[in-house]
């Protein structure tokens, strides 16, 4: 299995920059998920790694070897397409054996290897069939088998589950995760589905408009989104983002907006500054009118079965609240909410980047400043 390094990878189509200066290291055995909305450049990035598309700029390295200008067939990579791209005129066995045939394996060797891989993926009964005689899930497994058959350096997968129904999707998700664990394979997996990303990835790469927004484990990107894009993309419903202002109040900092006033848990003094305040729907708690930091009105309540989501209006902004059913709220009710300081996220309203609190050392009795922003509750 192999490592992949992307160095300043860029692709422009005419005046549009589909992939913009991506630097990324994929470790050996890693399950890296490229996540983002449609049009964010994740498939373009994958096709450049596969060698199906030439980058405008930058380099692709596989185990330190520069493969930027190597044709796809000479790269040691296997790809699973969203459409599966099973050759319609060939039987399942010939589809799976295709990469070996291209490598001039003997007929007997191919047969043995195909039988072995087909058995792993529970396809032994189907090897004589044509792709059109298979169900969606079976086709998906044949596509996986064709990738598995030649022990590639890394697997590239382009939304392989998006053509399956919800139930099959979750079982195939588990199957691919299991396969990854068993083989210790390096996988680069493209999806727009955050559930797939959160459940399968060892690391998630969030892309927006061709640019890298954040790289991190599922916990990191969910718990500490580095930009308003990441905050607003992950979660269902995603993080609430409100226009607010950080103001000093006595010796502590508070975040304020219309009908909103919450302590940040930072003892300091700083000039007021506008921020985008982020708080996850599940981190909002109902409280008494006296203790309320947020006051609003319920617009609608959605029943999700185990939980309820209340859509509220605070000031002139919308806010979602998610909690165990019943929340005891009805449309039109006034609602009193609060959130713990450690669950508040602050972003710069202009750039959208996350704001971290960095205490300014007083030179008399404090150590020199830290090279990186110190971890803080926010």
């Amino acid at each position, binding site marked *: 299995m192999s490592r992949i390094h992307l160095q300043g990878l860029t692709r422009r189509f005419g005046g549009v920059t589909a992939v913009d200066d991506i630097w990324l290291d994929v470790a050996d055995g890693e399950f890296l998920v490229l996540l983002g909305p449609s049009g964010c450049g994740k498939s373009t990035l994958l096709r450049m790694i596969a060698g199906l598309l030439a980058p405008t700029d930058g380099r692709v390295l596989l185990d330190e070897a520069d493969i930027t200008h190597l044709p796809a067939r000479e790269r040691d990579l*296997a790809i699973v397409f969203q459409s599966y791209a099973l050759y319609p005129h060939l039987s399942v066995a010939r589809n799976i054996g295709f990469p070996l045939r291209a490598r001039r394996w003997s007929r007997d060797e191919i047969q043995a290897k195909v039988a072995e891989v087909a058995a792993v993926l529970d396809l032994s009964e189907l090897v004589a069939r044509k792709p059109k005689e298979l169900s969606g899930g079976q086709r998906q497994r044949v596509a996986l088998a064709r990738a598995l058959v030649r022990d590639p350096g890394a697997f590239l997968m382009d939304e392989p589950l998006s053509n399956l129904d919800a139930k099959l999707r979750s079982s195939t998700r588990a199957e691919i995760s299991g396969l990854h664990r068993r083989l210790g394979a390096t996988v680069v997996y493209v999806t727009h589905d955050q559930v797939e990303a959160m459940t399968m990835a060892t690391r998630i790469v969030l892309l927006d408009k061709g640019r890298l927004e954040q790289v991190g484990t599922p916990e990191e990107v969910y718990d500490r989104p580095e930009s308003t894009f990441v905050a607003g993309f992950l979660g269902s419903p995603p993080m609430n983002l409100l226009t607010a202002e950080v103001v000093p109040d006595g010796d502590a900092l508070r975040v304020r907006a219309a009908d909103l006033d919450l302590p940040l848990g930072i003892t300091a003094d700083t000039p007021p500054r506008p921020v985008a305040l982020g708080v996850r729907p599940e981190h909002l708690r109902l409280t008494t009118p006296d203790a309320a930091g947020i006051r609003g009105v319920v617009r609608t309540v959605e029943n999700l079965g185990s939980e309820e989501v209340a859509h509220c209006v605070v000031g002139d902004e919308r806010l979602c609240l998610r909690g165990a059913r019943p929340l005891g709220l009805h449309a039109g009710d006034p609602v009193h909410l609060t959130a713990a300081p450690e669950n508040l996220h602050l972003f710069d309203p202009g750039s959208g980047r996350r704001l971290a609190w960095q205490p300014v050392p007083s030179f008399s009795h404090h150590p020199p400043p830290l090279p990186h922003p110190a971890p803080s509750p926010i």
Partner: protein
Amino acid sequence: MTTAGAFVEVELVRPRVVAAGPAARPVWWRRLLRALPPYLYLTPALVLLVVWTYRPLAQTFQLSFHSWNLLPTSPITEVGFDNYTRLLDTPDLGAALWRTLVVILGMLPFTLVIPVLVGLLSRRVRGRAGAVYRAMVFAPMLVAPVAGAAVWQWLLDPTAGVVDKVVGSPINWLHEAGPAQIAIIVITGWHIVGFAVLVVSAGLTGINPDYAAAAGVDGASRAQVTRWITLPLLSPTMAFLVLMTVLLSAQWTFPLIDTLTQGGPSGSTTNIYYLLWDYGFHSYDAGLGAAAGVLFFVGFVVLASGLVLLSDRLSHHDD
């Protein structure tokens, strides 16, 4: 104290009306009126088909059992199978069939081999250059066959023609038996090749590019992708082109034969369509022409069904 009780099944709640019979059907003329529009839309096409195809076909069949010299004043007499026996007795028919086969085989390079090669190669010409290139290949199709024939007549002229100057030998192309047939085939091929390239290009466009991409990643070279993936997936298109060639080659040659050689020299370019025309409109033997028409029609129906069956088996429903 305990209370006695029993579990009862929860019943499905649904509104129930006491005697809900089947919904009343609308009256018959209203149903008819509702069903009518699709047939009304079809009517013009059906009328044209009947008037211009099926009625003449039936009339030809009828005429093949009669003798008539096309003069409105002369009588049409019934002759039974006489026309058919006469047709099968003449050596003309066999010779014309043979020449038709030669035309079909001679056309295949223009309708299949060259278009597939050009189609595969021109895929690499992209954007505006590709469009210009395809337009240039297609251009001869837009030239009227008779006008094209006139120009070719000059080009093939044995004394001043460009072709002989290039070839470097004084061949009288249109007045020697072998060269005349070759000239007819090449000119027809020149005419039709653009159309065939267009069909192949359309067929190639219809193949999902993911297949070639997948095969490339799977390790196949460009030649292997063409041989193992593209050509097999193009086979329905190629079957269609073969079908067109078999059924229509002789028809495509007709305007050229009629302007350039009139079936000659000494019948060497007379294929079955020209023979049929010759019987009917040069020998004024309508019955014989009709009998030939009926025979060819039946023959081509058999051939076409065979080819259609074959192309059905070749098509891989790509979904």
